[in-house]
Protein backbone atom coordinates (compact mmCIF):
# COMPACT_ATOMS: atom_id res chain seq x y z
CA UNK A 1 0.00 0.00 0.00
CA UNK A 2 1.20 3.48 -0.84
CA UNK A 3 1.21 6.11 1.90
CA UNK A 4 2.18 9.72 1.39
CA UNK A 5 3.37 11.62 4.45
CA UNK A 6 4.11 15.27 5.12
CA UNK A 7 7.79 15.94 5.67
CA UNK A 8 9.31 19.09 7.06
CA UNK A 9 12.49 19.65 9.00
CA UNK A 10 12.86 23.34 9.84
CA UNK A 11 16.64 22.93 10.26
CA UNK A 12 17.24 21.77 6.70
CA UNK A 13 14.11 22.38 4.61
CA UNK A 14 12.86 25.67 3.27
CA UNK A 15 9.41 24.31 2.55
CA UNK A 16 7.42 21.16 3.33
CA UNK A 17 7.00 18.26 0.89
CA UNK A 18 4.98 15.04 0.63
CA UNK A 19 7.02 11.84 0.57
CA UNK A 20 5.67 8.47 -0.62
CA UNK A 21 6.39 5.11 1.02
CA UNK A 22 5.31 1.55 0.23
CA UNK A 23 4.21 -0.37 3.31
CA UNK A 24 3.08 -3.97 3.71
CA UNK A 25 -0.41 -4.23 5.15
CA UNK A 26 -1.92 -6.83 7.46
CA UNK A 27 -5.41 -7.53 8.65
CA UNK A 28 -6.59 -5.05 11.28
CA UNK A 29 -3.77 -2.65 10.48
CA UNK A 30 -4.26 0.81 11.92
CA UNK A 31 -2.87 4.05 10.53
CA UNK A 32 -0.42 4.17 13.44
CA UNK A 33 0.97 0.78 12.36
CA UNK A 34 1.49 2.17 8.87
CA UNK A 35 3.30 5.22 10.28
CA UNK A 36 5.50 2.93 12.41
CA UNK A 37 6.28 1.00 9.23
CA UNK A 38 7.32 4.25 7.54
CA UNK A 39 9.47 5.04 10.58
CA UNK A 40 11.15 1.65 10.19
CA UNK A 41 12.02 2.45 6.57
CA UNK A 42 13.06 6.03 7.28
CA UNK A 43 14.33 6.86 10.74
CA UNK A 44 14.29 10.58 10.05
CA UNK A 45 10.48 10.56 10.00
CA UNK A 46 8.85 11.89 13.20
CA UNK A 47 5.38 11.53 14.69
CA UNK A 48 3.93 11.38 18.19
CA UNK A 49 2.33 8.23 19.55
CA UNK A 50 2.17 6.35 22.80
CA UNK A 51 -0.56 4.03 24.07
CA UNK A 52 -1.73 2.74 20.70
CA UNK A 53 -5.33 2.26 21.81
CA UNK A 54 -7.03 5.66 21.69
CA UNK A 55 -6.47 6.58 25.32
CA UNK A 56 -3.47 8.91 25.46
CA UNK A 57 -4.46 11.18 22.58
CA UNK A 58 -0.92 11.59 21.27
CA UNK A 59 -1.26 10.55 17.65
CA UNK A 60 -3.82 13.00 16.28
CA UNK A 61 -3.02 13.48 12.57
CA UNK A 62 -4.81 14.63 9.46
CA UNK A 63 -5.49 11.67 7.18
CA UNK A 64 -6.97 12.38 3.75
CA UNK A 65 -8.14 15.76 5.00
CA UNK A 66 -9.82 14.61 8.21
CA UNK A 67 -8.39 14.76 11.71
CA UNK A 68 -8.15 11.29 13.23
CA UNK A 69 -6.40 9.37 15.97
CA UNK A 70 -3.99 7.22 13.98
CA UNK A 71 -4.04 4.32 16.46
CA UNK A 72 -7.80 3.67 16.16
CA UNK A 73 -8.21 4.43 12.46
CA UNK A 74 -8.14 1.23 10.36
CA UNK A 75 -6.33 1.78 7.08
CA UNK A 76 -9.12 -0.18 5.38
CA UNK A 77 -11.36 2.84 6.01
CA UNK A 78 -8.98 5.21 4.21
CA UNK A 79 -8.75 5.78 0.47
CA UNK A 80 -5.30 4.99 -0.90
CA UNK A 81 -2.80 6.48 -1.37
CA UNK A 82 -3.32 7.73 2.19
CA UNK A 83 -2.24 11.35 2.58
CA UNK A 84 -1.07 12.00 6.14
CA UNK A 85 -0.49 15.58 7.26
CA UNK A 86 -0.01 17.24 10.66
CA UNK A 87 -3.04 18.62 12.51
CA UNK A 88 -4.02 21.78 10.59
CA UNK A 89 -3.47 25.31 11.82
CA UNK A 90 -0.67 24.46 14.27
CA UNK A 91 2.98 25.39 13.78
CA UNK A 92 4.93 22.34 12.60
CA UNK A 93 7.90 21.38 14.76
CA UNK A 94 8.91 18.52 12.49
CA UNK A 95 7.01 16.22 10.08
CA UNK A 96 3.73 15.29 11.87
CA UNK A 97 4.79 16.80 15.20
CA UNK A 98 3.02 20.10 15.87
CA UNK A 99 3.25 22.74 18.58
CA UNK A 100 0.13 22.38 20.76
CA UNK A 101 1.10 25.13 23.26
CA UNK A 102 -1.84 27.41 22.44
CA UNK A 103 -4.24 24.47 22.67
CA UNK A 104 -3.03 23.68 26.20
CA UNK A 105 -3.06 27.36 27.17
CA UNK A 106 -6.73 27.57 26.19
CA UNK A 107 -7.41 24.41 28.18
CA UNK A 108 -5.65 25.88 31.22
CA UNK A 109 -7.64 29.11 30.86
CA UNK A 110 -10.99 27.42 31.59
CA UNK A 111 -9.77 26.20 35.01
CA UNK A 112 -10.33 22.51 34.29
CA UNK A 113 -10.66 21.48 37.93
CA UNK A 114 -13.28 21.63 40.68
CA UNK A 115 -13.43 24.96 42.51
CA UNK A 116 -14.86 24.73 46.03
CA UNK A 117 -15.66 27.66 48.29
CA UNK A 118 -17.04 25.59 51.17
CA UNK A 119 -14.42 23.98 53.35
CA UNK A 120 -13.42 20.65 51.88
CA UNK A 121 -14.99 17.68 53.66
CA UNK A 122 -12.84 15.05 55.34
CA UNK A 123 -13.73 12.52 52.67
CA UNK A 124 -15.22 12.69 49.18
CA UNK A 125 -17.83 15.25 48.02
CA UNK A 126 -21.02 13.24 47.43
CA UNK A 127 -22.91 13.47 44.14
CA UNK A 128 -26.25 11.93 43.17
CA UNK A 129 -26.27 9.41 40.31
CA UNK A 130 -28.42 11.84 38.29
CA UNK A 131 -25.86 14.64 38.73
CA UNK A 132 -23.06 12.23 37.88
CA UNK A 133 -24.87 11.32 34.65
CA UNK A 134 -24.64 14.97 33.54
CA UNK A 135 -20.88 14.50 33.13
CA UNK A 136 -21.26 11.68 30.62
CA UNK A 137 -20.10 12.78 27.19
CA UNK A 138 -17.88 15.42 28.79
CA UNK A 139 -15.30 13.74 31.01
CA UNK A 140 -14.23 11.27 28.30
CA UNK A 141 -12.18 13.87 26.39
CA UNK A 142 -8.55 12.81 25.99
CA UNK A 143 -7.30 16.20 24.72
CA UNK A 144 -5.99 14.80 21.45
CA UNK A 145 -6.72 18.16 19.80
CA UNK A 146 -8.49 16.73 16.73
CA UNK A 147 -11.52 18.99 17.35
CA UNK A 148 -9.84 22.33 18.01
CA UNK A 149 -7.42 21.94 15.11
CA UNK A 150 -10.38 21.17 12.81
CA UNK A 151 -12.19 24.33 13.90
CA UNK A 152 -11.91 27.31 11.52
CA UNK A 153 -12.63 29.73 14.37
CA UNK A 154 -9.66 28.26 16.25
CA UNK A 155 -7.51 28.55 13.11
CA UNK A 156 -8.24 32.29 12.87
CA UNK A 157 -8.03 33.16 16.58
CA UNK A 158 -6.11 30.43 18.45
CA UNK A 159 -4.79 32.99 20.93
CA UNK A 160 -8.22 34.31 21.91
CA UNK A 161 -10.88 31.68 21.15
CA UNK A 162 -10.87 28.82 23.66
CA UNK A 163 -11.75 26.24 21.00
CA UNK A 164 -14.04 23.21 21.26
CA UNK A 165 -11.85 21.03 23.50
CA UNK A 166 -11.41 23.70 26.18
CA UNK A 167 -15.07 24.74 25.99
CA UNK A 168 -16.21 21.13 26.38
CA UNK A 169 -14.15 21.04 29.57
CA UNK A 170 -15.53 24.40 30.63
CA UNK A 171 -19.04 22.92 30.44
CA UNK A 172 -17.84 19.73 32.14
CA UNK A 173 -17.09 21.80 35.26
CA UNK A 174 -20.09 24.14 34.91
CA UNK A 175 -22.29 21.03 34.77
CA UNK A 176 -20.65 19.46 37.81
CA UNK A 177 -22.87 19.70 40.90
CA UNK A 178 -19.77 19.79 43.11
CA UNK A 179 -18.30 22.90 41.46
CA UNK A 180 -18.99 26.26 43.12
CA UNK A 181 -17.54 28.75 40.65
CA UNK A 182 -20.36 28.98 38.09
CA UNK A 183 -20.58 32.79 38.13
CA UNK A 184 -16.83 33.26 37.84
CA UNK A 185 -16.60 30.72 35.04
CA UNK A 186 -19.39 32.41 33.07
CA UNK A 187 -17.93 35.88 33.64
CA UNK A 188 -14.58 34.67 32.37
CA UNK A 189 -16.22 33.52 29.11
CA UNK A 190 -17.81 36.91 28.28
CA UNK A 191 -16.71 39.03 25.36
CA UNK A 192 -16.74 38.28 21.67
CA UNK A 193 -13.78 35.87 21.64
CA UNK A 194 -13.43 33.12 24.22
CA UNK A 195 -16.82 31.45 23.69
CA UNK A 196 -18.63 33.43 21.03
CA UNK A 197 -16.22 32.79 18.14
CA UNK A 198 -18.02 29.44 17.87
CA UNK A 199 -20.29 29.61 14.81
CA UNK A 200 -21.61 26.05 15.20
CA UNK A 201 -19.62 24.81 12.20
CA UNK A 202 -19.51 21.42 13.97
CA UNK A 203 -16.24 20.16 12.48
CA UNK A 204 -15.39 19.30 16.10
CA UNK A 205 -18.36 16.93 16.38
CA UNK A 206 -17.53 15.31 13.08
CA UNK A 207 -13.91 14.51 13.92
CA UNK A 208 -14.00 13.70 17.66
CA UNK A 209 -12.54 10.18 17.95
CA UNK A 210 -14.45 9.72 21.20
CA UNK A 211 -17.80 10.69 19.65
CA UNK A 212 -18.21 13.71 21.93
CA UNK A 213 -20.20 16.82 21.05
CA UNK A 214 -18.46 20.11 21.91
CA UNK A 215 -21.04 22.13 19.93
CA UNK A 216 -23.81 20.88 22.23
CA UNK A 217 -21.69 21.71 25.28
CA UNK A 218 -21.13 25.23 23.93
CA UNK A 219 -24.90 25.55 23.42
CA UNK A 220 -25.43 24.55 27.06
CA UNK A 221 -22.96 27.23 28.19
CA UNK A 222 -24.86 29.88 26.18
CA UNK A 223 -28.17 28.69 27.67
CA UNK A 224 -26.74 28.91 31.18
CA UNK A 225 -25.41 32.41 30.43
CA UNK A 226 -28.89 33.47 29.29
CA UNK A 227 -30.43 31.87 32.33
CA UNK A 228 -28.08 33.66 34.73
CA UNK A 229 -27.72 36.89 32.75
CA UNK A 230 -31.23 37.90 31.73
Amino acid sequence: MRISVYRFNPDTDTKPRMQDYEVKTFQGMMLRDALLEVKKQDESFSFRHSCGEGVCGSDGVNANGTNVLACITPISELKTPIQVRPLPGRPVIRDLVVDMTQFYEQYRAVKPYLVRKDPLPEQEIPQSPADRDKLDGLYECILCGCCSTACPSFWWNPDKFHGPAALLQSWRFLADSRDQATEERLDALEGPYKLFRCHSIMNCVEVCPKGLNPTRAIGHIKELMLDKGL
Partner: protein
Amino acid sequence: MSRQASGLMAWLIQRATAVYLAFFLVYVLIHFTLNAPADHAALSAWATRPWVALGLMLFVPVLLAHAWVGIRDVLIDYVHALGARIGLMLLFGFVFIASGLWALKAIITAGLGG
Protein backbone atom coordinates in the same frame (compact mmCIF):
# COMPACT_ATOMS: atom_id res chain seq x y z
CA MET B 1 -22.66 41.14 37.56
CA SER B 2 -23.23 42.23 33.99
CA ARG B 3 -23.22 39.89 31.03
CA GLN B 4 -24.67 42.51 28.74
CA ALA B 5 -21.41 43.00 26.90
CA SER B 6 -20.46 42.22 23.36
CA GLY B 7 -20.54 38.42 23.50
CA LEU B 8 -23.87 37.17 24.79
CA MET B 9 -25.85 40.23 23.72
CA ALA B 10 -24.59 40.16 20.13
CA TRP B 11 -25.37 36.45 19.92
CA LEU B 12 -28.85 36.97 21.35
CA ILE B 13 -29.59 39.85 18.94
CA GLN B 14 -28.49 37.71 16.03
CA ARG B 15 -30.75 34.81 17.06
CA ALA B 16 -33.76 36.98 17.92
CA THR B 17 -33.60 39.04 14.72
CA ALA B 18 -33.22 35.82 12.72
CA VAL B 19 -36.63 34.66 13.97
CA TYR B 20 -38.36 37.84 12.75
CA LEU B 21 -36.46 37.79 9.45
CA ALA B 22 -37.42 34.16 8.86
CA PHE B 23 -41.15 34.81 9.41
CA PHE B 24 -41.25 38.05 7.45
CA LEU B 25 -39.27 36.67 4.50
CA VAL B 26 -41.50 33.60 4.32
CA TYR B 27 -44.55 35.91 4.23
CA VAL B 28 -42.97 38.07 1.50
CA LEU B 29 -41.95 35.02 -0.51
CA ILE B 30 -45.43 33.47 -0.33
CA HIS B 31 -47.09 36.80 -1.15
CA PHE B 32 -44.85 37.43 -4.15
CA THR B 33 -45.33 33.85 -5.39
CA LEU B 34 -49.11 33.73 -5.14
CA ASN B 35 -50.01 37.37 -5.62
CA ALA B 36 -47.12 39.17 -7.25
CA PRO B 37 -47.82 42.88 -7.81
CA ALA B 38 -48.29 43.58 -11.52
CA ASP B 39 -46.74 47.04 -11.60
CA HIS B 40 -45.21 49.76 -9.46
CA ALA B 41 -48.59 51.10 -8.39
CA ALA B 42 -49.63 47.66 -7.12
CA LEU B 43 -46.33 47.28 -5.28
CA SER B 44 -46.81 50.70 -3.70
CA ALA B 45 -50.37 49.84 -2.70
CA TRP B 46 -49.13 46.62 -1.07
CA ALA B 47 -46.27 48.34 0.75
CA THR B 48 -48.53 51.05 2.14
CA ARG B 49 -51.07 48.72 3.71
CA PRO B 50 -50.73 49.56 7.42
CA TRP B 51 -49.64 46.09 8.57
CA VAL B 52 -47.25 45.60 5.66
CA ALA B 53 -45.77 49.09 6.17
CA LEU B 54 -45.30 48.35 9.86
CA GLY B 55 -43.73 45.00 9.04
CA LEU B 56 -41.37 46.66 6.55
CA MET B 57 -40.46 49.48 8.94
CA LEU B 58 -39.57 46.85 11.55
CA PHE B 59 -37.82 44.70 8.95
CA VAL B 60 -35.24 47.40 8.12
CA PRO B 61 -33.65 47.89 11.57
CA VAL B 62 -33.98 44.18 12.38
CA LEU B 63 -32.22 43.23 9.15
CA LEU B 64 -29.49 45.80 9.77
CA ALA B 65 -28.93 44.65 13.36
CA HIS B 66 -28.66 41.05 12.10
CA ALA B 67 -26.30 42.08 9.32
CA TRP B 68 -24.20 44.15 11.71
CA VAL B 69 -23.60 41.22 14.09
CA GLY B 70 -22.80 39.03 11.09
CA ILE B 71 -20.35 41.43 9.45
CA ARG B 72 -18.75 42.13 12.84
CA ASP B 73 -18.22 38.38 13.26
CA VAL B 74 -16.63 38.16 9.81
CA LEU B 75 -14.31 41.09 10.55
CA ILE B 76 -13.33 39.74 13.98
CA ASP B 77 -12.58 36.35 12.43
CA TYR B 78 -10.63 37.43 9.38
CA VAL B 79 -9.35 41.01 9.74
CA HIS B 80 -6.79 41.09 12.52
CA ALA B 81 -5.02 44.39 11.81
CA LEU B 82 -6.71 46.86 14.15
CA GLY B 83 -6.65 49.82 11.76
CA ALA B 84 -8.12 47.84 8.87
CA ARG B 85 -10.77 46.32 11.12
CA ILE B 86 -11.90 49.66 12.55
CA GLY B 87 -11.86 51.21 9.07
CA LEU B 88 -14.02 48.41 7.64
CA MET B 89 -16.36 48.49 10.64
CA LEU B 90 -16.87 52.23 10.17
CA LEU B 91 -17.41 51.76 6.44
CA PHE B 92 -20.00 49.01 6.94
CA GLY B 93 -21.59 50.95 9.80
CA PHE B 94 -22.08 54.04 7.63
CA VAL B 95 -23.30 52.01 4.65
CA PHE B 96 -25.78 50.16 6.89
CA ILE B 97 -27.11 53.35 8.48
CA ALA B 98 -27.40 55.07 5.09
CA SER B 99 -29.20 52.06 3.56
CA GLY B 100 -31.52 51.89 6.55
CA LEU B 101 -32.42 55.56 6.37
CA TRP B 102 -32.92 55.34 2.61
CA ALA B 103 -35.18 52.28 2.96
CA LEU B 104 -37.25 53.93 5.69
CA LYS B 105 -37.57 57.05 3.58
CA ALA B 106 -38.81 54.93 0.66
CA ILE B 107 -41.45 53.25 2.82
CA ILE B 108 -42.61 56.57 4.30
CA THR B 109 -42.65 58.30 0.91
CA ALA B 110 -44.75 55.47 -0.53
CA GLY B 111 -47.10 55.82 2.44
CA LEU B 112 -47.48 59.53 1.78
CA GLY B 113 -48.34 58.76 -1.83
CA GLY B 114 -45.08 60.13 -3.20
